């Protein structure tokens, strides 16, 4: 069609000017650079190596823990208890806001100094703001016959370890 060739299209350049496409290109580059900077910043701020204590603790020989005892270890934040049904370990970290609870043997309960939550020796919440019972932690006996606790692994409540 020769007619179309002769009539210059005036509308087309208005839709897509050279300046407009450069602005779009520039904004696109800035968006890409911004996204890259966000990823870069996020990666930089997340440590790849943590110099934190190992979550696995050796609690020693089972006969260190007599029947009916609750032993608190504030260093690792673990209660190791020997109930009638066997051994179990509780996290001493309060489920409210992460304070370290204490074992009050004269009252026979676990209490949090920060906001007053109270738990039974099996971690069941008695009172206070804590939303959940204390976490039960994975306990097993190592090849050397030591009790091992993994603070990073929770198990369902009432899962006792018999030795």
């Amino acid at each position, binding site marked *: 069609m020769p007619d179309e060739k002769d009539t210059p299209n005036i509308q087309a350049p208005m839709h897509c000017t050279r300046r407009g496409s450069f602005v779009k290109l520039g904004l696109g580059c800035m968006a890409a650079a911004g996204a890259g900077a966000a990823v870069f910043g*996020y990666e930089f*701020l*997340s*440590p790849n190596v*943590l*110099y*934190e204590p190992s979550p696995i603790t050796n609690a020693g020989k089972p006969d260190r823990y007599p029947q009916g005892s609750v032993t608190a270890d504030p260093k690792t934040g673990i209660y190791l208890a020997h109930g009638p049904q066997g051994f179990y370990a509780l996290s001493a970290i309060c489920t409210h*806001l*992460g*304070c370290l609870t204490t074992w009050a043997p004269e009252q026979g309960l676990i209490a949090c100094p*920060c906001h007053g939550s109270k738990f039974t020796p099996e971690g069941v919440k008695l009172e206070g703001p804590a939303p959940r019972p204390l976490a039960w932690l994975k306990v097993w006996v190592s090849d050397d016959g030591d009790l091992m606790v993994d603070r990073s692994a929770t198990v369902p409540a009432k899962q006792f370890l018999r030795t």
Partner: protein
Amino acid sequence: MAKSIEAYMNDVRETRLWRSVFRSGSGATNLHRALAVQQNIFMHLFSVKMRRAALNFSVTWYLGTLSLATFVVLVATGIPLMLYYHPSVPQAYADMKDLQFVVSAGVFLRNLHRWSAHAMVLLVFAHMFKVFYRGAYRPPREFNWVIGVVLLLVTLFLSYTGYLLPWDQLAFWAITVGSNILSAVPMLGHKIRFLMLGGNTVNANALLRFYVLHCVILPLVAFLFVGIHFWRIRKDGGLYTGRSKSHE
């Protein structure tokens, strides 16, 4: 006969040295006074003229100025404290104790920093309530109210980050509790906590991050927003004196 101090100062103001720094020179005309404000880097954020009513104590109770004053005290005491404080786990608590008992005037600077920090939080809240109950946040000052809210948050975050630095039991558990509150943010909470602490527990990384936030990042943000806050007072027609033009 000795010259009066006023006359002596007028002579100083006419010297070439003085005029090279303060171009407006001496003079009691309105133009001179306006130039003195406009040509000073610290004063040029403010209006060259203001209503006499804005100087009345009852209008502002000077709460904004007092907030700034405590901030200046905090910068002036905080920088010397940095010279004796190492943000590391073995040293932080001992350095804080050294500042109290070993460093000359250390206890004065530390206590001044601490009391000024308490005073600043109090004054910033009082400033906010005063502005709110007088209705000074209304147009055309809405944006300055928003800047003020940012400054309130910066103040609180400065206070919070500074709280960890003594590295005592109170500091440790306060930041443990505070960062666990942060992890209640839906979806991102645990991630934000991890990034803020630089780990899963309040430890060496958290101490260092809070130190950098407290001593570098947050003060810079505060300086920036305080600058905008003051500049907006001029742009929004000066301090709110309680009477709009139509009622005068």
